[in-house]
Each structure stands twice: as C-alpha cells, then as structure tokens.
C-alpha cells in the first residue's frame, strides 16, 4: 500500500508571507492546530509549521540561527508573562516560524515506511509531495491506523 492511497488531499497550506493572524484564523474552528505545509507560488513545499513553532512568535529571532551553537542555555521564557504588542499578529509571518529542515514523504512511499519514519522522527503528521517536490497531501498516524483497521476488516 502506498501513501497516496491513504493520505488526505484537502490540505490547508500557508505561504511564507502569510501573517500569524491569518494562519491562526484559518484554524479557528479546529480542535487542534494541524501540521501546516508552507508552499511557494508553484506549489513547491518549502517548510512546515506545527503548533510548537507558534511559540517562536514570542522570540525576537528565528531559532534556526542558533540551532548549531553548542553550550547555549535553554531559553525558559514564560509565555504568560512576556509583554508583546498586539501588532505581532500582523508583523510575524510564517517565514519567521516555519521549520526549514523537516521530514516529508513522496506519495509513492510505502505506508509501512511512512509509519517507520514517523516513529523514528517522533512526528504524528507529515506533508506529502510528488516526485517534483510539489505538495499533494498530508498523512497522519491516524490515517495509517485507519488503513490498517480497514485492511484487517475491523472497520
């Protein structure tokens, strides 16, 4: 079974220039904040944003800059106390939050491999692209479990 048979194709994506406020508004009615693929004009996948990255809105620089630096103290910022202006909803854009290095799959990957990759990288959702790197869908652990249950005749 390949990923394309199991993935969901209706994906809400964002652009690098999407503002934080717009991003949050698109998921206003969802229970959770899903993995949001970030694409360029030609649909090419360039990054992902998850709810963990939203915390970076409170930082004054992109955490990627310091990812490689040894001996850095962890930042223990208290998001309840940080004083930020309402303006950050329009000032912070997806480019400031997204992960540039991320795990993604091509749609011809085997579902077993996809599941292994999620387990190894501790991810519950991954973006799916075609061979050319264009976004075609999204797959989560739940999609895979559903497929397994269906395959075993449980649902």
């Amino acid at each position, binding site marked *: 079974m390949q990923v394309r048979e199991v993935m969901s194709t209706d994906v809400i994506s964002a652009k690098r220039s999407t503002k934080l406020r717009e991003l949050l508004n698109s998921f206003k009615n969802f229970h959770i904040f899903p993995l949001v693929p970030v694409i360029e004009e030609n649909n090419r996948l360039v990054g992902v944003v998850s709810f963990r990255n939203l915390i970076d809105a409170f930082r004054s*620089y992109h955490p990627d*800059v*310091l990812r490689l*630096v*040894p*001996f850095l*103290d962890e*930042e223990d910022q208290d998001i309840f106390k940080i004083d930020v202006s309402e303006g950050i909803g329009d000032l912070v854009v997806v480019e400031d939050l997204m992960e540039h290095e991320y795990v993604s799959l091509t749609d011809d990957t085997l579902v077993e491999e996809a599941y292994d990759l999620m387990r190894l*990288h501790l991810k519950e959702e991954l973006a799916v692209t075609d061979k050319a790197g264009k976004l075609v869908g999204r797959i989560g652990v739940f999609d895979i479990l559903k497929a397994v249950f269906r395959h075993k005749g449980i649902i």
Partner: protein
Amino acid sequence: MNTVLGLGFILFAGLLSAKLVKKIGFPAVTAYLLLGIIIGPSLLKVVPKAVLASSGLISNIVLGIIAFGIGQNFSRYQMRRIGRSVLWISVLEACGAWILVTAIFYLILRQPFYLSMLFGSIASATAPAATVMVIREYRAKGNFTDTLLGVVAIDDAWCLIIFAVSLAIAQAIYAYQVAPFFLLKVLGESLLSIGGAFVLGALSAFLLSVLYRFIHTPTELLILTMGLVFINIGIAIWLNLSVLLASMFLGTVLVNINRYSFKFFDSLKMIASPLFLLFFVLAGANLEVQVLGSIGMLGLFYLIFRVVGKMLGANLGARIAHASTSVRKYLSYALVPQAGVALGCALIAKNDFPEVGNIIFTTIVATTVIYELFGPLLTKYALRKAGDIIV
C-alpha cells in the same frame, strides 16, 4: 567520596549553581566553571580523584560531540543563508585575534613560536552563551542583532579549523625542535593530520548514512550516532589525526549527503547537556590555583590583545562587506566572552604539550572567568549603542 557519588554531586551542585547564577544575569557556563574551581583539589578538595582522572575522557567525548555539531555549519543551506557581512566579519575577527595574539606573544613576550601560535589559535574562539543571554533578556531586535547572532553562531567553526591547523603545525615544530618556517616536513605532517581527518570523517559519515536505513526507533538512532561519533574520535586518536577536524568533517559530510542529518544531531542533544556540565566543572577543577600567580604578563597580554585582535578584524570585515556604521563600531564589543571551545582547545593543548600545557590551560581558565563576567556588560553596551535595545 566514591566516584558515582562524586558525579552525582557535581550534577546536582551544577544545576543549583546555574539556577543561582542565572538570577544575576550570567550564563550557566560561568557557574559550572566557578563551581569546579571551588570544589576542585586546589580549594575544597571534594572532587574524587577518579572523577578528576576522567577529565581527559570526558573532554574528548564532549569536544567530539561539539565539533560534530559545528560541522553542520557547512551545509549548502547554511552557506546560502549566511550573509556577506557575517562571513567577512566572523572570518576576520577570528583570524585577527589569532594573528595578533600569536605575533605579540612571539615578538614581544618572546615565547616559543609553537606556544604563541597555540595561544593565538585559542584566542579566535568566542562563546555565544553570554551574548545570546543578553539578547534574549532585553529582546534585542534589529539588523545589528541579526549580524551579531550570525557571527557568534559560526565563529566556533572557524576557531576549530584555526586551532586544528595551529595544533598540527605546533606539534610538528615541537617534535623536531627546529625553526618554525620553510619546513617541508612541518607542512607535510600538518597536511597529513588534517587530510587524514577529512578522509576518516567522510568515511564515517558514509557509514552512518548507510546504517541509518536499518534504524527504526529514536533510541536506536541515538545509539548508532553516539557509537559512530565515538569510533570516529577513537580512530582519530589512534592514528594521530586531528580529533576535532575528524568529528567536524563527519558532521559536514553527513549534513551534505543525508537529507535527515539534522536528526542525528538532535538525538545527541538529549544526552549532551549533563556531559557539558561535567566538562565545565572538571575544567574548573583542573585549575591549579597556585599556577595562577605565574601567568602574570601572559594572562594580561592575552586578555587585552585577544580583544584588540577581534576588534581590528571585525572592523576590517565590516568595512569590506559595507556593513552599517553601528556594526562596524560596536559589534566587536559583543565578541568578548570565551568559554567552551576555548577551554576544550586548552585541554587538548594541556594533554599534548605537558611542559607548557599547564600554563596555557591556567591562562585560558582564568581569562575565561574574567571575560565571562565582563562580557555580558559589554554586549549590553554594544546593543544599546546600536539602538537594538532601549534601556
């Protein structure tokens, strides 16, 4: 105190002292180092002998892990992202300190050339922890802050290269006890140590990348990465190659051949923090307080000319890259702190050159404490002058 109790005590006391020191605005590194000096054999004498004896082992492992991480700086993505001014300023401030300290030690203090060069190369390091702490505390933002973060992030990579090259040359000069210049043999041995490290690092990276296919869980990934980093370090020691460069090249080659290489580095981060703590406390504990008195002029000249070298280099780099006036004038003030990489290099020098190693190590530990105490104040001054914080 038995060994295990000693280790436990160090971890526990380290955590407490870091929390305490953070409250008054200094990075954890300062706390670990001071703790080490206080509980070490020179003062309270509570660190067990067996723990002290393991300093070399721990520093080799920690330096290997750090160099492995620093190797990632040379990925295609990072190289594309890094700006012209960051590149020029970081290369020239590192080389500025290297060349100036070497020259001053050799020409004015009349130290042997290999010793001068070791001091010079260690001077090129800059510790980002204190700088980043100030940036975070005051939520500094702006062009100056961006350039500064870029420079402190890549600086350690230049330092590792500079130190590895200097160490190889110093070892060759030391071994033959001959004049430092125009010697083919010196050059040949240095190239062998560096080239060999590259080949070893690259081979390990390919092996790691191949074995990655058989890995299914995060635990296995951690074990595999750790195992190969250790094997790489071990073979480098065995073959007399540059340990730092072998680890760095492992990271560099890996990041350029494996799409998910960032996962290898992330997995090591989980176990690195307690090792880093031990490394710093033991660095402090290895300081012989009685040697402090004998460093006198060496320490003073190092303290001053490292900063002057960085200032001249950063200024020149900023001019070449046409950076803003504030970057040109004030950035070097924020490059004063030194810590982990400098200490690590000093430990290597201490092991490789038993006769002069103690002087190098003591000078670096003592100046580190001074730099780390004044560094945050200077960083704050620079950020305020540049207009990136309003205090």
